[in-house]
């Protein structure tokens, strides 16, 4: 009876399993956006996901699609293996910054350079979440983590890696953008980007990646609200949102 007034429900791309994520963490938001896009594109049935190692290691529990669980950082290689033998399927990886930008840097760069027709959802929350908040390649200069207790000293610990900027230099990349999940407007923009990334794959237009600035209230030691502010005030100046590469063919896609 209330069905007609229903304005918010679990997307069909989700299973009924509640997520294990901490309160205030934006992984849940990112998951939901992916699930909504898969549903809207009608591709749930032909999608195979590749889960990473990190906080989203259990991503396979939440999406109602086939899923495999990759070794740490190797999701783009696994996705390559799957997509090459099943080119008509939709294959995506969901990776954090430890997984993608640290141990898996080789795999992601070469998957992008080869122009693998896969979609990568890249969560940048500036730390290793699952192991308890250690410094990641994306940790901001001066940012305190459990393995940079005095704040990241770039003289000693090096500089953060700007993944979207770097990958956008590669010819195999069709779509590479950075979005943020810190407020409703940006969440809507993030969803549009995720849709475009999957549309890129569906049309065989090359490698697609959406980097999502995300929160980690537990390891940042902040309330969820302050975490959202941190993204806006500290992460966005260092990691500017934007379209780092959208190939001409993809620009013409109308959805």
């Amino acid at each position: 009876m209330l069905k007609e007034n229903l304005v918010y429900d679990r997307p069909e791309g989700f299973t009924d399993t509640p997520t294990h994520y901490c309160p205030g963490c934006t992984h849940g938001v990112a998951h939901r956006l992916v699930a909504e896009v898969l549903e809207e594109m009608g591709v749930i049935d032909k999608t195979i996901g590749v889960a990473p190692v990190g906080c989203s290691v259990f991503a396979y529990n939440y999406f109602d699609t086939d899923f495999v669980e990759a070794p740490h950082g190797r999701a783009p290689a696994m996705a390559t293996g799957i997509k090459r033998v099943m080119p008509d399927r939709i294959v995506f990886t969901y990776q954090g910054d430890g997984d993608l930008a640290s141990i898996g840097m080789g795999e992601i760069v070469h998957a992008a350079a080869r122009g693998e027709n896969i979609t990568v959802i890249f969560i940048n929350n500036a730390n290793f979440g699952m192991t308890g908040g250690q410094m990641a390649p994306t940790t901001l200069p001066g940012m305190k983590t459990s393995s940079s207790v005095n704040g990241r000293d770039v003289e000693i610990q090096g500089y953060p890696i700007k993944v979207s900027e770097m990958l956008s230099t590669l010819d195999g990349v069709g779509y590479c953008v950075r979005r943020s999940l810190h407020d409703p407007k940006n969440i809507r923009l993030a969803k549009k980007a995720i849709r475009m990334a999957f549309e890129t794959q569906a049309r065989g237009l090359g490698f697609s990646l959406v980097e999502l600035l995300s929160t980690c209230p537990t390891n940042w030691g902040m309330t969820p609200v302050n975490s959202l502010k941190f993204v806006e005030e500290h992460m966005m100046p260092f990691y500017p949102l934007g379209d780092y590469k959208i190939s001409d063919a993809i620009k013409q896609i109308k959805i």
Partner: protein
Amino acid sequence: MPKELWKGNEAIAEAAVRAGLEAYFGYPITPQTEVLEYLSRRMPELGRAFVQAESELGAINMVYGAACTGVRVMSSSSSPGVSLMMEGISYIAGTEVPAVLVNVMRGGPGLGNIAPAQADYNQAVHGGGHGDYQAIVLAPASVQEAIDLTVLSFDLAEKYRSICMVILDGCVGQMMEPAEMPEMKPVHRENWDWNTDAKMGKRERRILSSIYLDPVEEEKMNLRLLNRWRTIEANEVRYKEYFLDDAEIVIIGFGTAGRVALSAVREARAQGIKVGLLRPITVSPFPHKVIDQLAGRVDAFLVTEMNSGQMLEDVRLAVKGRVPVEFYGRMGGVVPFPDEILNEIHRMAKVKLSADVHPRDAWLERMAHV
């Protein structure tokens, strides 16, 4: 099919194609590179998947991904590259998906050299990757056998949802011999009940993972693998016997070391010495039973390997100290000559052998001249 002149590495590549290989992922490394080069042409012309990966890590994880979809997939490498692949091997074992890996072994440890060796026996047979798992390991001694065992490796991998390794040394990989190829088998996708090839409106979703967060569940998984391994041990042991009927001394060697030993055995037989050869084809599962039986009726064993005596320990476990086990090995990429093994046969036929000294220690003393 008529016999043709085939190089070992290319023969393996073509045999895999004819066995229905749908995807190959590899990385250049001597003395295995011809497998990669051959398939870089052959796979695309058949519309099958080929990727030269960014590293052996990338290659084995591409294999892992494709294996999850249920297709026939393989990689090949040589010793240092296979070390890099051990992460993926463990995951493939833990996820129970079938995959084939060819290791054309070279001298080691470390970068070593590019000469033929058998020093990765322990890595292949006794683990290498982390966790409790066993791999099926086949050891060809000729180009023909490399072809036959490559074809078999896909069947075994699928039958047991297991990693199946073909280990050969650089000799077999690089040499050319007349050999017969099998007929071309069409690519056939089995209707597995475990693969993640997307739901496609036909079934519930599937997950393939090596995670068992609950230790009790992980232990159950370990037991499942172990029970499957017992079936493999019961059904899949393969070896070749030469002159064993009346043998008093039995040589045991696999791959090229076994083949060199056969030349020595033939010469010793011509001289009237009752010596035979047992050449394991499956080094894992290991032919314990036949060695156990032989130990009850022969005077002594000689294990020959192109390493420091890795299979030697498995032979000693089977012999259980009942008769002397001697060892002769060459390492670092040195291939023994038949004469060297013939000298060992002469020595064993002459002197009284002791089971008290560890055969490796005795061998090291005899090797002092090197």
